[in-house]
């Protein structure tokens, strides 16, 4: 391949970010056009990569030596496989949709779009990096745009939330960084490439367990796994809709992506994996149940959806913790599904706040008659998230519960599956309850109905695209699993999985 496609996926948004950043004054109103063009180009590229024959993916790998001095070697290596491609596609898609969704943003739109595009640079980089140094840099690059997105465009408590988000996740990244130091110097002795580390291997058992812990902590905060989740509700509630969509849709996935990519690499952590397995499953189940109970207690739609992210990512953690073929497969599928569904969820919540003036369920009621389009999309998004058969969420949850069942059977702890069922029941409960309070019943008189309006055409198209995809992948999950299966079996062939 002569065209460096993967580098382009990072460079296109970077160029776009620089361009939009300097579109001050009268040109400000064209920033959204530039952003749309560049995100669309990245989306087209990612689709092109997606529809390439899967054997060709490995040929796309690009490898440039970056720093080679004083006994260390860092390289810019971009590579793509079945796991990466889904995340890259998700990033490119959501980024484009978010730009379109925010078409009417009028507060300094040039900076707004520059920040979005800068986010895309970091996200693309994380999902394609094959070198720990590059991976870490890209991981941190996502922080600053999000910090400014929240503190410039966010809600009333934005300053507090932005700083909390920034520092909390930065601390976790630094802990992860120590893990990376240990990992790299303990194996390849200074070559930061993924492949060099995996090939060298050879960590002692104690060291494996220790480093796994550091890396897992760094990833778990990003996911986030309770009790390290407290930055998330604040950040989500205060972030602008675009920020929340990206935060839930793709940024949280960085954590679970990292766990699959690094922690579940049997070449490195074969001895640590069984030790950490119960912790992962335990934390995952705790996250599921805790998230659900937190959801029930919320009155703010957006906050409820934020907590539902925690419980859904808890399911992903359970799937990864199973360390079985089916568990990891559906963990990845759930990452993808949750990316699309949570994007729709946060858009709907953002629209409620914007169009009705409040997201408080106690104040809303009977909105279905007043805003039928809103009601339709809210129902689709909520139903998908609670796992209605025929939509994406169902496939993911079904597979993950099956994986959990298998694991519990193997360790003789069958009754715990009841917690999984409780989770499903209560998830359905709070979503349906929320819809009932918001959409149905008597039309509320507690909000300014004069100004309450239904969603506009642009938002409608964006949500429709998401809805179609959610249904499409729900009916034909093979479209996604065709990418996941070869990836998972490649880890299985490496001897990495336990069951």
């Amino acid at each position: 391949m002569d065209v460096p496609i993967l580098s382009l996926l990072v460079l296109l948004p970077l160029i776009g970010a620089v361009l939009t950043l300097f579109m001050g004054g009268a040109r400000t109103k064209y920033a959204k056009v530039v952003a749309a063009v560049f995100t669309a180009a990245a989306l087209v590229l990612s689709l092109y990569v997606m529809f390439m024959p899967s054997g060709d993916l490995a040929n796309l790998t690009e490898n440039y030596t970056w720093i080679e001095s004083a006994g260390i070697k860092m390289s810019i290596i971009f590579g793509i496989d079945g796991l990466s491609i889904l995340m890259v596609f998700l990033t490119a898609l959501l980024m484009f949709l978010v730009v379109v969704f925010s078409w009417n943003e009028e507060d300094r739109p040039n900076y707004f779009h520059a920040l979005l595009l800068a986010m895309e640079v970091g996200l693309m980089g994380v999902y394609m990096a094959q070198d720990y140094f590059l991976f870490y840099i890209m991981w941190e690059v996502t922080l600053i745009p999000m910090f400014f997105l929240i503190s410039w465009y966010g809600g009333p408590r934005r300053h507090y939330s932005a700083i909390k988000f920034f520092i909390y996740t930065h601390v976790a990244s630094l802990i992860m960084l120590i893990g990376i130091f240990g990992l790299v110097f303990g194996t390849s002795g200074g070559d930061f490439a993924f492949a060099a580390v995996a090939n060298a291997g050879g960590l002692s058992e104690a060291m494996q367990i220790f480093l796994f812990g550091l890396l897992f902590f760094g990833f778990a905060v990003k996911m986030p796994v309770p009790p390290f989740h407290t930055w998330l509700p604040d950040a989500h509630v205060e972030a602008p809709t675009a920020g929340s969509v990206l935060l839930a849709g793709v940024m949280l996935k960085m954590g679970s992506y990292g766990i699959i990519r690094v922690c579940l690499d049997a070449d490195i952590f074969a001895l640590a994996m069984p030790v950490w397995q119960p912790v992962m499953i335990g934390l995952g189940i705790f996250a599921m149940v805790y998230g659900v109970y937190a959801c029930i207690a919320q009155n703010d739609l957006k906050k409820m959806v934020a907590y539902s992210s925690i419980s859904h990512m808890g399911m992903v953690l359970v799937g990864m913790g199973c360390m079985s073929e089916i568990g990891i497969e559906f963990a990845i599928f759930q990452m993808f599904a949750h990316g699309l569904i949570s994007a729709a969820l946060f858009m709907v919540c953002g629209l409620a706040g914007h169009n009705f003036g409040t997201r408080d369920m106690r104040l809303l009621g009977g909105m279905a008659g007043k805003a039928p389009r809103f009601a339709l999309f809210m129902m689709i998004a909520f139903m998908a998230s609670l796992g209605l058969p025929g939509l994406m969420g169902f496939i993911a949850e079904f597979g993950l519960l099956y994986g959990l069942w298998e694991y519990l059977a193997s360790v003789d702890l069958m009754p715990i599956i009841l917690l999984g069922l409780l989770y499903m029941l209560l998830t359905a409960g709070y979503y349906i309850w929320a819809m009932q309070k918001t959409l149905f019943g008597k039309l509320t008189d507690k909000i300014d109905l004069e100004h309450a309006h239904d969603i506009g055409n642009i938002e409608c198209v964006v949500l429709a695209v998401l809805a179609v995809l959610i249904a499409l992948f729900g009916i034909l999950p093979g479209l996604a699993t065709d990418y996941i299966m070869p990836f998972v079996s490649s880890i299985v062939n490496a001897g990495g999985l336990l069951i």
Partner: protein
Amino acid sequence: MADIFNSMIDALSDLLGQGIYVLPEIILMVAAVLSPLLYFITKKGTASAVLTFVLMAVSAVVTCIMMHTVTYGTAFGLFEFDAFSSLMMLLFLAVGGLTVFISQGHVETTKHKGEYYALIAGAVAAMMFVASATNLVAIFVGVEVVSIFSYALVALKKNDPRSSEAAVKYLIIGALSSALTLYGMSMIYGVTGSLDLYGPDGIVAQVSVMAGNWPFIIGCVGMIAGYGFKISAVPFHSWSPDVYEGASTPVSGFLATGSKKMGFAVILKIFLVMFVAMETGVLSEDFQMVFAILAAITMTVGNVVAISQTNIKRMLAYSSIAQAGYILIVLAVMSQYAVVGGLFHMFTHVVMKGGAFVVVAALITAGLGERISDYNGLAKRAPFAAAAMMLFLFSLAGIPPLAGFTSKFILFSGALATPAGGVDLTWLWLVLVAVLNSAISLYYYARVVKAMYVEKPQTEERLPIGRAFTVAIALCVIGVIVLGVYPNVLLDLCSTAADALFALV
């Protein structure tokens, strides 16, 4: 090209004899003598500024040429030109050049322009002598010269009582630290019978038999304390915030980036070499622990106290203390790779901290106050300065892909990597402390960024930034980005310098 340089160097060495190996220093001494003369003749500060700057540039070019041609040589048995000393010289020249470059346009600069540039040139020359000195007395004298010039520099803002107070404080504490150093040196001379550091009869050659020798240990402790003042390691740091606040801003930047690095050069030349020579001795482990604790306390106190500062110069002073703590990790770890990280961090510190001081100086010249609340809404009033300041602060906090991240990355990873390329968890606690400190520091840096970008300005009035300031800020911005993204060249230099340092053992 190389032939021309070689014949030039040959001709010069015929002329100067061994003096060729201190040629860069001599050039700066010429600058120190000529610049006040020129000022008294022309009565123009710009003339002596240009002269000093040009001679600094010449000195830097000469150093670079010598790095590629002669690479090694000793002068008068006191000074040694090698990869380490030449790299440190370049650092001091960069600091001095930056200071001279922005001083002319700076509002706080005094009427005594001729003396001002002479003091800076002289201080840089003395720093360079210190970097190449191999004898305890030569080091002591060099450091004293730098100190005395610095007292005068701090006091030059004569009409401001804060400046005089700072100078007096600096003088008294400096005198105390000199006394401690000299006392330590005398003990060591008494025990070893030598003032030369290296060589067959030197101090380093004798350290392996010094375990349990109390006068020697007391001597070392005295010197650590004395030079601890210079690098403002906690608990010897109390002078630095007052001095940085009281002195004119270019001078504060000069002290924070220049004279502190000289302290590190001394510590590396004396202690690192000495402790590595002790090899597996019990004594060196004790001293490693001393430095590890010093490092941990220094970075923690620096960062925690910085949080509560409301004056930007004081905040930068405390952040400098914290950065000194990071560099002290090198002395605890004592591996070659860690030294590379430490040297590299000194350079990135010059561009990011120096850059931050340049921005502060530019804004003071433009009429802005020194309080952090004065920076509210700066992004609207001085967009370029605000953007640059944000980059410098994020770089100081270690956010990738800026210079501060890359250097901290290497420095911290150096604390975990063993020379053979494995992992050693001895200093894990120190790295954890360092990393958590990095996170703390993000809080107060982000607060300034928030003030600049999120808060509303008191007035919308634009702040004019002078041309020299703009150029200097732009250079530092380029430095912060280039050293972060493409550190290869400098890393190679640091690597060679570390080799040279370890070759002294």
